[in-house]
């Protein structure tokens, strides 16, 4: 390593195939449902330093959400059944794009719907708005045309949503995969073929607890989504499998609580990561991850994040997708 002064390049473009690009100053993103609408943490952390943030899931109509209790702590994790409480796409548009216009951090809108047409309708409305950097499609929703079977569990249904949204907007599209899919790789390949600019994973895993005193399910909604460190090994495995199968950028998440966790996802093949539950527990975490990653890259002579994306993938996968990636073993 030469003595010349340099700082590592943390920037990442999450939509290299889209002329509108989704260029982030660093790969650390606040996850949907865990960061409100980008305003809530303003007095606590420097929101502008984030790579990006994703809004709470927005639906076609306003929703009051599920009955209480909505959250339940579990071993090294938590269950949530918020029920997508949100002001609806029109209420959202009245309030947030103009607040976001005053911020420089990229703001991504997470959308959920129960029909393909509704997804497309929301995308068309968002397309006209300022200050929106991209759309994250949450396919972990019941498809009412298919008897409530979750879009995200089926490659074709996920691809239908992706295509419809892509036809309605030129905004960069991230499709957020559900870990409940029978074959998550098949879903990833299908949404890539349908035009996804990037793929994020994983959403929460469905779980439940029972209140043994009351002899009833704890959550008002009976089941909820499991998040936090408890799900991390599953998330890392899915990112590893998906990243080897697609060429679009992959955004990894699930239980990230420290720099080593972030590195696991990156080495599995993620070009960026999201932090959800970790922010509740430790609001300073995302900013600390950026600082610690910068320091780690400097210390290890990693000039660009690309150099370690997919570093843990087998050689064949690295040739297919991660050209230029060297493992520690190769470069030492």
């Amino acid at each position: 390593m030469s003595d010349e002064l340099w700082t590592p390049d943390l920037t990442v473009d999450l939509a290299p195939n889209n002329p509108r690009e989704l260029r982030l100053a660093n790969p650390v993103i606040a996850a949907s449902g865990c960061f409100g609408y980008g305003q809530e943490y303003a007095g606590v952390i420097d929101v502008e330093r984030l790579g990006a943030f994703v809004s709470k899931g927005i639906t076609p109509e306003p929703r009051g959400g599920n009955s209480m209790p909505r959250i339940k702590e579990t071993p090294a994790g938590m269950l949530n059944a918020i029920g997508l409480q949100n002001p609806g796409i029109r209420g959202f548009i009245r309030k947030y794009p103009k607040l976001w216009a005053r911020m420089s951090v990229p703001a991504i809108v997470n959308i959920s719907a129960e029909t393909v047409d509704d997804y497309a309708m929301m995308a068309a409305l968002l397309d006209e708005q300022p200050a929106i950097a991209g759309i994250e499609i949450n396919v972990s929703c019941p498809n009412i045309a298919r008897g409530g079977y979750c879009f995200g569990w089926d490659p074709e249904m996920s691809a239908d949503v992706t295509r419809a949204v892509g036809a309605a907007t030129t905004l960069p599209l991230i499709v957020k995969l559900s870990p409940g899919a029978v074959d998550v790789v098949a879903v990833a390949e299908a949404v890539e073929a349908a035009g996804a600019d990037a793929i994020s994973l994983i959403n929460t895993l469905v779980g439940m607890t029972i209140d043994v005193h009351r002899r009833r399910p704890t959550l008002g909604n009976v089941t909820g989504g499991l998040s936090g460190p408890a799900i991390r090994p599953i998330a890392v495995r899915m990112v590893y499998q998906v990243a080897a199968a697609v060429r679009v950028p992959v955004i990894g998440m699930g239980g990230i609580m420290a720099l080593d966790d972030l590195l696991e996802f990156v080495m599995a093949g993620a070009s960026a990561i999201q932090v959800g539950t970790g922010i509740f527990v430790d609001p300073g975490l995302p900013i600390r991850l950026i600082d610690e990653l910068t320091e780690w890259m400097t210390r290890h002579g990693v000039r660009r994040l690309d150099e370690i994306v997919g570093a843990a993938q087998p050689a064949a996968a690295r040739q297919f997708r991660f050209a230029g990636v060297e493992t520690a073993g190769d470069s030492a």
Partner: protein
Amino acid sequence: MSQRQLGGDLTVAGTSAPVRSREFVGEVVGIEPIMGDAAVLSVDVPMTVVHGLRSGRFFEITCRDEVAFDPLLRRPYSVYRIDAERGRLLFLVRPFGRGSAWLSRRRPGDRLALLGPLGNTYDIGPTSQNVLLIAGGVGVAPMVMLADEAIGRGLNVTFLMGATTVPGLLPATELPDRVEYVVATDDGSKGYHGFVTDLAADYVRWADQIFACGPESMYLELRTAIGPHRIGRRPTVQVSMEREMACGLGACLGCVVETRHGMVASCIQGPVFDLDEIIW
């Protein structure tokens, strides 16, 4: 350790932010038994945190060791009292489950990761002269701070406290002298034999405002007990709602209370609500 050192480069489980943020590190300086199995935990914090703090607000405290993930979520704690000169927060902690048991085992010198102050406050109206405070169990915490505030403003304060048995009652010495303190126990071992809410009816006509903190069942009893004696919505009643919380900042919507204005986050628009606004 001086104030300036606190919250500087120190990090403990779940914190890294500078003092300016609402995320900071405090140092335990004392833990004293007070009533039953509950203790008062004294924590030195940056001066700016204590400045202007009012009753009802709370802090989210990380209740685990630095390297552990259990219990994962922070626990909300109301402020029991402040020492503005020393920059000190006092909390009333009852070991109940895992988080509170961990907190009850803290010793002087231990560091704590806090997030706050969070939430809204109890509000004493500008024309109020007589205020009725009602506490159930460890719900007494924000009521003590409110009693301090009301006495400081020269108001007449009656403080009703209920507990299952005598050890669960707040010692009278904890309250300012001018407070009229009336107690009730479920087993009749001290004071009135029965629910503290039964006592409230006698004060309804006297009180300009009623403030309460306790379990939700207590609020329902209170509503029934005072209903026939109120004139319309007078006196108004402010209650603190207890909800399990994750973020404490209005981001997750896990802590909502159903009100006439919809589902609202109790960590932002609460924990203090007008009793008549809540849909029970």
